[in-house]
């Protein structure tokens, strides 16, 4: 791969954005007719669909908890979603790990004690992959859970951040991700500002860590504003229709 200049001398990134700028985000809820709650989220070219079924009867009696609901997350990556067609098997460790992360992120946030002995299923379908899949999945899952009317203590907003050449930047796309830049995915609860998920896989010096993490926090707050607007618009829409 030829050396691509990720940050131009004027400080613009490879797709023309400034370092602290998010990609164009489109989101809609209630897109699926069969699921209890659903959301479709686009982060630039990364397209993710989330469907929530539940609370419903648990599939395996042995796993049922007497005082809480269990959350089950499944990932499905469409074969045409990445640059080269790759058939990811269901047991691929990477997918299992991401599913486990999403599950652990929502377990403390969803008020599971309200739905004892039941199961909440979150299905995530990745339709197109252009960097930042985990963050898009968490955001889509949050909106789908709200759309399904499942009680949560707060939104969960996620954003990626990294160190691109000379500066910290947020919302990295696929080219920036694959070219050896350090990338961290952070999920935050906006009301308290606390971090609930943090994943990093590449090398980053400790001194730069603070800047990158606080920039990610800013990105999460921006995400929260976008997601909140979508949810409120839809709620107003529904209220207007019901008032008739």
């Amino acid at each position, binding site marked *: 791969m030829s050396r691509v200049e990720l940050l131009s001398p004027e400080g613009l990134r490879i797709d023309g954005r400034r370092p602290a700028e998010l990609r164009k985000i489109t989101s809609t809820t209630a897109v699926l007719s069969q699921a209890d709650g659903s959301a479709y989220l686009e982060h630039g070219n990364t397209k993710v669909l989330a469907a929530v079924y539940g609370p419903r009867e648990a599939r395996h009696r042995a796993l049922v908890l007497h005082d809480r609901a269990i959350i089950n997350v499944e990932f499905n990556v469409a074969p045409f979603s990445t640059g080269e067609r790759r058939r990811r098997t269901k*047991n691929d*460790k*990477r997918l*299992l*790990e991401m599913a*486990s*992360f999403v*599950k*652990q*992120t*929502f*377990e*403390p946030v969803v008020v599971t004690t309200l739905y004892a002995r039941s199961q909440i299923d979150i299905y995530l379908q990745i339709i197109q992959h252009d960097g930042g899949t985990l963050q898009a999945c968490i955001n889509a899952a949050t909106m789908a859970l709200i759309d399904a009317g499942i009680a949560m203590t707060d939104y969960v907003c996620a954003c990626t951040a990294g160190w691109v050449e000379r500066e910290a930047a947020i919302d990295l796309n696929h080219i920036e991700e694959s070219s050896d830049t350090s990338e*961290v995915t952070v999920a*935050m*609860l906006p009301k*308290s*500002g*606390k*971090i*609930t*998920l*943090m*994943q*990093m*896989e*590449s*090398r*980053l*010096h*400790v*001194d730069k*860590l*603070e800047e990158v*993490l*606080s920039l990610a*926090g800013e990105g999460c707050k921006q995400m929260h504003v976008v997601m909140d607007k979508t949810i409120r618009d839809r709620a107003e829409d529904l209220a207007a229709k019901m008032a008739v």
Partner: protein
Amino acid sequence: MREAEPSTNEREFVLAALKEGARIDGRKFYDFRTLRLSFGSDYGAVEVQLGNTRVLAKVSCEVIRPFPDKPTEGFLTFNTELSPMASSAFEVGRQTDEEVLVSRLIEKAMRRSRALDTEGLCIVAGEKVWSIRVDIHFLDHDGNLVDAACIAAITALLHFRRPDVTVVGEDVTIHTLEQRNPVPLSIHHIPICISFAFFDNGERVLVDPTYLEEQIKEGDMTLTLNVHKEVCAMSKAGGIPMELDQILQCTKIAVVKVTELTALIQEALEADAKKRQVSRK
């Protein structure tokens, strides 16, 4: 099989002790358990004992064809299997959530951070490269499997010697151990994982939790750093949400711990090297 949860009495006791600043085994909050490294007679076999947690790592190598689109890169694979020997919660064949997370963390810490120079494993570009395989066996689970496994893996890689190779034009000779002294692998840096457990709404932070502390914890985080103060991997999934300052505080603690542990590992390797030299004479 589901593991037995600690009784309410145990839980209360541990939490009350933590409130007073004491841990059950008498350690301070930021102390690691005693780390003992023992090397096997072969190069690349290491057993790590972290308190009661025991992990065995074994490195082996073989020559294979590289991928066509990466002709000068060797292979580094990690194989972790949590056997029922370590804990009754693990089952043969079925991958539990914990197993996936442990093996992914080790891969991220070692492979993604380029601890081992894979380009240095090339013998003949496009035809022959070394494939290094690290098998990690968990013998006894008393908490903090990730840290122990990581130390075992990196120490084994540092300890391992591969057979020497001479390439003359098209001719490749792999020398046996009698003919030529085996060669160490080129390791760029030493990543060490430090795991934290959070209690009491995030107020108490413990390093190197035991099994009991792991079952009671409210949240956890694993940081992987090296001596050069570079963070190689970070993983905090769910559990209690933490403030940014608390996380940065943990990184500072981790930096100190990593220096200590790296020094311990270097000491052990040197002691073993001396022993081998003496026995060879």
